[in-house]
């Protein structure tokens, strides 16, 4: 599963988010049912994005490439690999988003879309209520985890670009809290 021994924050996230080993088994079990629908989900996702003028600007001229990348990422979530490579892949997305100036708003909006859309696919194609509930919980937990890893790396990369280390960032946050409390 995950190698998080030195990652205190990720451990805390996983503890609260509750994405566990049995969720991996659930996702592997439902993968053959969900995978055939991911292409359609990706198409619907980009159709929706193109309707927003601001987002459409970012997509101009690269829609096919972006769809392919998105579908590849979505499919990879069902591979059952949630170890170091998985973490690194999500972090790479956060890093790239800083470099190509894709703000966190887009990740939050995308994840929100996927939560609704994949839940709908599950309820449509997994008829056993218990299995559907378990699958939804596992998949939502996985999407939450991806968003956390992507956003965390985005933030870290942005701050590093400004020359502000994580330690300094924590100090600045703590300073703000002290002032608010006093």
């Amino acid at each position, binding site marked *: 599963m995950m190698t998080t021994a030195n990652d205190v924050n990720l451990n805390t996230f996983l503890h609260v988010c509750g994405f566990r080993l049995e969720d991996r088994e659930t996702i592997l079990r439902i993968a053959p049912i969900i995978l055939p629908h991911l292409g359609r989900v990706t198409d619907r996702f980009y159709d929706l994005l193109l309707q927003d003028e601001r987002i459409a600007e970012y997509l101009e001229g690269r829609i096919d490439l972006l769809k392919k990348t998105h579908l590849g990422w979505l499919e990879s979530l069902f591979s059952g690999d949630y170890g170091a490579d998985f973490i690194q892949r999500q972090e790479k997305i956060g890093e790239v988003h800083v470099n190509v100036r894709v703000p966190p708003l887009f990740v939050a909006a995308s994840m929100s879309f996927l939560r609704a859309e994949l839940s709908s696919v599950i309820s449509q194609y997994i008829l056993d209520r218990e299995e559907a509930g378990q699958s939804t919980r596992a998949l939502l937990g996985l999407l939450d985890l991806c968003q956390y890893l992507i956003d965390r790396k985005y933030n870290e990369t942005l701050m590093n670009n*400004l020359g*502000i280390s994580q330690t*300094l960032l924590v*100090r600045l946050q703590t*300073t703000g809290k*002290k002032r608010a409390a006093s």
Partner: protein
Amino acid sequence: MREEMIKSVLSDLNSGSADIEASAVISLDGLTMASMLQANMDEDRVGAMAAAMLSLGDRTAIELARGALDQVMIKGSNGYVLLIHAGSEAVLSVIVRDKAKLGLIFLDATRAANAIANLL
């Protein structure tokens, strides 16, 4: 021992001009290594703010092709904050009154920063 030596440099700096209210040496991560601050000044806040400003100054100097950063000066209605690299791992922060003659203070602060850099 080293902290005491740095404090001694800060003490000399502060006593060199009545317009210097306080000074501190801070790591690039915002940890205050030594300080001669007034009682009402929060050491953690001075450290975090100085390190953040220096980081942004470093980045600004690079982005705008101004070469290696020498110093950052902030002017407010109550006075100035001067930030000067003290070697590659620390920053000297000097808090100065609004009517101060900055020329002499810059000179003293640069000397102090060099002395601190040699101690680190």
